[in-house]
């Protein structure tokens, strides 16, 4: 009886793992975020799926992340390193650069629980993304877990 219960529990948890959900923060023309849930199957890599969705938003949302703009993504302990192609992020408008960063970092924190820091790199190095945003520092979960653009009312 007890062995049967243990087997059932394992099966349930196996099901939970296979039905992983990630959240992609899309942004509309009014600069409002639209967190969108995507179900990732057990065969898929959730990080790969996340970046695929970020680079191909539905047409009603802004296209913030250029296609083929990622060199590599890797995780070291609780930090995810996102190595971007520098050439794709030159001379951006601030309006686009800010939304891109918020969208990317929020999507990562909402989708990947164990990650506490996001480190952006430009061709493997620190730099200035789009001419505006310093990538020297790590973006923390505490600040970017939720959409960080606030309005006091």
């Amino acid at each position, binding site marked *: 009886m007890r062995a049967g219960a243990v087997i059932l529990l394992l099966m349930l948890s196996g099901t939970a793992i296979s039905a992983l959900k990630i959240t992609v923060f899309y942004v509309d023309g009014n600069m409002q975020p639209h967190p969108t849930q995507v179900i990732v199957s057990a065969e898929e890599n959730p990080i790969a799926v996340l970046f695929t969705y970020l680079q191909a938003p539905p047409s009603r949302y802004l296209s913030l992340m250029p296609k083929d703009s990622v060199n590599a993504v890797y995780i070291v302990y609780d930090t995810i390193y996102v190595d971007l192609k520098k050439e794709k992020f030159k001379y951006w408008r601030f309006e686009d650069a800010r939304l891109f960063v918020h969208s990317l970092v929020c999507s990562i924190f909402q989708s990947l629980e164990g990650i506490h820091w996001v480190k952006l790199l430009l061709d493997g190095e620190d730099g200035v993304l789009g001419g505006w945003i310093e990538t020297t520092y790590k973006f923390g979960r505490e600040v970017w877990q939720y959409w960080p653009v606030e309005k*006091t009312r």
Partner: protein
Amino acid sequence: MGKFGPMYFLRFKGTVVSFMEGKSMLSGPDFVRYLSGPIYARNGLLYVPVFDLFDTLQISYRWHDGKVLLITCVLKKIAVLPDGLEIVYDGEDIFDVRVVGKSVSIKLKAPCMLEKGVYVPSNVKVKMDEEISVEVPSPVKEYNVERARGLLRIHLEFKKLTYRYVVFRVDGRIAKDGKLRKMFKLYGLEPVESVVDPEQTIVVDFHTSSIKTIVYEPEPVELKGISHKNVVISKRIAALMSEKLGYTYEPLFLCSLDQSTVSLAIFAPLEDLEKIVEVMGKCVLEL
């Protein structure tokens, strides 16, 4: 006003003056004032030289652009005190007090005049019939107005300033606009071209943009808390300003922000610039 036989009487406050048609004088119980011409009647109206009459009855007036302005308030003393301002006057309370930053302004709601020989302190500007203004040495945190008969006293509580300097750049260039500089000074902030003392300087980068947002720098873990105070205050100013301006505020590691000081980047339309400077001055006083 009254009439007794051919004699007319006028009384104002404690003075009584009498006069007659065809005579060239005004008289009272203890005075006679001779006029340049006789008092006369025409179309049922009696014509009396008005300035002689006003002078005799001690009615304050001013001749301005072909009109006689009757003065209902005469300023007898204007004094700047260590904790405020005092005005002693005779007549009507016509004062509307406004205090913004270092500026104390008393709008005059009716014509008034200074009594002869009244000393006006050098830092007090009197624009007759319009305004009395004083620039006090420090921005005012709170004030209250005491009104008594013939006395207006404004009590001022000054703000102890934490931040004294501002580096304000507009699209990458130091703002040289005289009006903006004057507005900063009104709130006790001296516009400078570079950081004078990181503990007392606020750096603001204004960028012309169609979006309306204020960017503050979050605390980078790599700095191990070194910039904590600046981060907290930057965020507080950003939140206060965004509330007053109806903007958003957000964290970002902007390459233009300086972590050694309180610093902000403001992205907004150029026409909002003056309003931003005014709101910023008020928010710095609230810290």
